[in-house]
């Protein structure tokens, strides 16, 4: 961990809001990406990201300075997302998302980089399709796959975030990857 970050955390331990603001700026989009791909809903992901940072601030004394701050923060974000998924599973029939609405909210905040309307539509459709496939993964495979392919973290970092051995991380990624492959290709009629 770099020295600036160490200094910032020291200040946060003394309850310095400005120092914490800098840490939020540094990690907010990574935390958001994890939550978004874990739960698949923009508004929920934003709320979960907020909660993750508030929790990190309130429990900063539990953070072990010898380890990477991002590992600790991503663990909070992943656990909150999993808790959310479990809660949602129990109340799913009441507020099941209407197909299509989520896509709209996500597109509203995605940058429009001057691409052709056709390209944009295609990208949106691919995006929604891939997210839908992630949503089908069991949560333990989902978190491993998200940390690996969305955040591009090493197996070791993932094992520290999820607090499981590297071997287990590998197994979960392999199974998640295999499930994605199966589900994604069955639609194209190419199932092996």
């Amino acid at each position: 961990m770099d020295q600036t970050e160490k200094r910032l955390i020291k200040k946060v331990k003394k309850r310095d809001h400005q120092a914490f603001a800098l840490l939020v700026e540094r990690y907010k989009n990574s935390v958001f990406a994890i939550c978004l791909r874990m739960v698949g809903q923009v508004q929920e992901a934003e709320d979960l990201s907020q909660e993750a940072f508030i929790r990190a601030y309130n429990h900063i004394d539990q953070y072990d300075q010898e380890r990477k701050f991002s590992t600790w923060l991503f663990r909070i974000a992943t656990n909150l997302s999993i808790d959310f998924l479990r809660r949602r599973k129990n109340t799913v029939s009441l507020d099941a998302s209407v197909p299509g609405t989520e896509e709209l909210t996500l597109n509203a905040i995605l940058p429009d980089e001057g691409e052709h309307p056709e390209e944009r539509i295609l990208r949106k459709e691919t995006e929604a399709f891939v997210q839908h496939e992630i949503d089908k993964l069991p949560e333990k495979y989902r978190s491993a796959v998200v940390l690996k392919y969305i955040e591009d973290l090493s197996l070791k970092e993932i094992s520290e975030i999820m607090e499981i051995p590297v071997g287990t991380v590998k197994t979960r990624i392999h199974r998640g990857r295999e499930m994605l492959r199966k589900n994604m290709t069955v639609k194209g009629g190419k199932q092996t």
Partner: protein
Amino acid sequence: MSCSSVKYLSLMNKVLDQEATDQEKQQLFEHLASCDTCRIHFNELKASTELLRRLAHPQLPAVFTKTVLEQLPPEKRHAIRRWGSQHPVLTTMAICVVPMSLVMIGARRQVREKNNYVLIKGLGDQT
């Protein structure tokens, strides 16, 4: 998959995890060249992870940080200390005033005592 070899499946995983040796890579690619089932399987695995990698990373709005800060418990630092860290020059000056004024008061007292001594001594000499 019709090619029943678990061996190649685990090789595929090793290659995708970037943990395969050159020899293992070669072994897999030689097999893929001759086995359609495994080649399709491997390409599908690669394609699905590639789709994941290409997912957008949307940015949170700038107001996010502010919203988080507003929900934190109030800062423990006193207003004076916060003012202090925002105005380091004034703080240093303020801190320096204390010892400087002590020194000056001390110096003036010394001078006064000396004067008194001279005065008393002067009186004593007269008598």
